[in-house]
Every structure is written in C-alpha cells, then in structure tokens.
C-alpha cells in the first residue's frame, strides 16, 4: 500500500491510496485535475506529466529513456519530470508528493 499526494495547478492537495497499477490510473480514477491519461498509459500522449518532489526522486527512480525522449520536447519539463503512467504503485513509493504539470 502506498499513499500518494497530488498537488494540482490550483494548489489543491489530494492524497490517495493505492496498491497496484500505475500512478496515472489511480489519479484518473479519482479525477485528479490535470492528469488525463489520454493514451491509457502507453506513453504516447504526455497528459500524465508530473513533477516529483526533489526529496522523493530516490523512491520513484529516474525517468526512462522513452519518457525523457518525450519530455525533452516539452517546454515545461525539468529534471523532476515524470510521465506518471510509467510509475508503478508499490510500497516503495509510499509518501511521495507529485505536482501536476498541467
């Protein structure tokens, strides 16, 4: 079980609990604003872009090459960017804070 906090563009903070699946699915399932997950998580739409809190990068790990290739071409992206459809929920990411990019 992991608790994940999303901070949306209007500064709302929502904490959700999940056990499996992707972080994107959890967010979409609860209507977190700014995470649309249009492509269902196959890494083609970038509508699941989040910034990982600096202290949490160790838990989530770095973005994969597929993600960085895509994020490189997003003017909004920085070193904390992840496509959260590529973050699997597990105990390891318990407590992370993600700021929604959009």
């Amino acid at each position, binding site marked *: 079980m992991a608790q994940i906090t999303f901070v949306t563009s209007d500064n709302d903070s929502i904490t959700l609990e999940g056990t499996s699946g992707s972080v994107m699915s959890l967010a979409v399932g609860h209507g977190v604003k700014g995470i*649309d997950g*249009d*492509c*269902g*998580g*196959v*890494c*083609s*739409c970038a509508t699941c872009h989040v910034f990982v809190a600096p202290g949490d990068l160790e838990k989530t790990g770095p973005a994969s090459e*597929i993600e960085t*290739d*895509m994020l490189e*071409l997003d003017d909004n992206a920085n070193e904390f960017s992840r496509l959260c459809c590529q973050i699997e929920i597990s105990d390891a990411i318990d407590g992370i804070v993600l700021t929604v990019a959009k």
Partner: protein
Amino acid sequence: MKNSVLPDPFASAREKRGLGEMVDQNDPVTMVLRHKDVRKCAHQYKTFSSEDIPGRIVVPSEVNIRETRQLPFELDPPRHGTYRQLLEAWFKRPLQADYQSILRKQIEELIGQALLQSQVEVVSELALPIQSHALTLLLNTSHEEAQKWISWGTHVFRSEGEALDGDKAMVLYDYIDEQIERAVLHPGQDLYSVLLASEIDGRKMTKEEVKGVLVLTFAGGRDTVINAVTNAIAYLADHPGALERFRQEPEIIGRAVEEMIRYFSPLTHMGRVVKEDTQVCEHAIKADSRISLCWASANRDPAVFENPDEIVLDRKINPHVGFGFSHHNCLGATHARQIMKILLSTLAEKVSTIQILKCKENIEMLSDFQRKVGYDTIQVKFNAIK
C-alpha cells in the same frame, strides 16, 4: 498477403536518407520520415510553421480551394494556444459517462443492423454512418443532421479522380455558413452557438473564426475516423482470435486502440512551412519551402518500435504519433479513441467472425511512395455470436 495488411512504403527511404520528396502543385514537399525527427520538427514551430497562407500546410495543398483559416490548426503559438485553450474542455466531453453511453447506443444500433444484412459495404454503410452519428454528439447538434452528412458521401473534398474539388468543398462551406446564421438567430447548446458566444482577446469570436473551427472539425475528423473504423474491421476479419481475446481480456482494448492508430496511421502526414534556412537529418532545407511530418513512417520506425509491421494488440510502450505530437496534437483524439474503444467492445460482444467478400484498396499517391490508407470499398459479412 492478408487483405488487412498495410505495407510500410517508407522503410528504405527512412533508413537510407530519412527523407522523401513529393511533388505537389509546384510547391514540393520534403517528407520527414524518422520518428525522432518528426517529433523534433513538430515541436520547433518557429522554424516549421503552421501559420502561412490558409491551406498551404495541407498536402495536397488547398491554397487554391479555400481562404478560410482553419483554427487552431493553422496558427503557431502563442496565438494557437489562445484558441486551443478555448476548445479543450469541449473536446474532452467524450470522457463523460453520458456521452459514452449515447455513443455506445449509436454504435450498437449500427452494428445490429449490419448483422441483419447478408453483406455490408463497410466504408459507406458502417464507417461513414458511425462517424456521422458520432459527430452529432461532438457538435451537440440535432441527431437528424447525420443523415445529411451521410448523403454527402465519403468524398466531401475530392471527386472520383481524387483531385481536390473546389465545388464539392463548397457544399460543406455553404452548409457551415448556414448553420452559423441559424445559431446567430436561434442560439442553442451546440458548438456553433457556444463558439459564437465565446471571447478571444476580450472580443467576441467572429463568424469567420467559428467557420475556421467547424471546417476543421468536419474535415479533420471524417476520412481519419472512416479509415480507422474500416481498417479495424478488415483486421478483425483476418484475425478472428482478436475478437475472442477482447472477450476474454477486455482490459486490453485501450491498448489495442492505440496500436491500431499506430499501425493504420489514418492521417499519413501533415505539412509545415519552413521559416528559415535550416537542416533536417543533415540535409539543407530552404526557407519558404515545405516539409511534411510523416506520422505513418515515424510509426513504423524500428528504432522505436519492436516488430513495427505487426499489430501487437497489447503493446505496452507505444509512443506513436498517429494523433500528431506537441502543440497541434489531435484535438479530436478523445472522441476518436472513444469511437474505437466502443466499436471494438461492441464487435467483441456481438460478432463471432467477419468475412471479407470483396475489396478495393485506397492507395495514396505520394510521388516517391504509394501508401495504402484503407479501402475505397470493402464488402463483408458479419456473423453473429449464437
């Protein structure tokens, strides 16, 4: 070779040079073929612009047949963003449950009818009706309008010879003008009325701007959806196991839709006008020439996709560009994805097998390349689940 195969005509040029050349009405196009280059050029709007004479970024060029600027399509950021933002929420409506349930009813009914026929011409008797009925939902107009759009036939912009046909396009433009006048007199809840009432830069949107949005919604969402639906049915006819798999594992339908969009690439490419002397793939490209972003070629790039020429229904990582990439990515994608998901799940629910009786392929002529994008006609027989 199976009927449903869409060969990749770009393989050799993509590998050797990364570029292709196309002749088009004295305004040649350099086609960008590699996935990485296509995404990069799509992102670099200052060098590769969408904002030029209306119609010029379309291939074949439409400069001689229209003056209306299509919005937000033929603008660059930041102006593009102003219009795009205004439209985003409306084009996300397909995520709503009631939208999906009406769309499901429409598609179930059309497939139900197809099951009663001894044979069905998929393009005109199923794909066009599905596309037209669904569009009434997207525009939130009266359902009766669908019959009129179906009666226009599959070629609203091209006559039989495939050449661009200004007179045929006029039917659509006149229709949209009429609808805008109607919405001015009797505003309702439809897209025309909503746009007429909306503000851009502190002023009301003009009729010409509203027309620019609507023309694009009709044009961009027609052949693309028809090709996606038709190719999907041909694929399922050739691969009866796929329908069984959707029944067993409905959770893969979302991925299957993405994979079909990648493999079919219903929109082959889209142009940009080059604003300064530059290079693509180490070749010099001159200012005021045209390039095209070839989504269809990028989607078969073996540098990105394993087994690119195969449909892998549950492909997990699939960074395809079938709906474009970056600023101009497809505004109708939410709608198109819902149509395809509901189509696949409805077919899985009702249909056991599909037989192709006869078909005529639709081949696009792109100078160096010939690409099958779908079918002019395809007769099939749907067999119901007993």
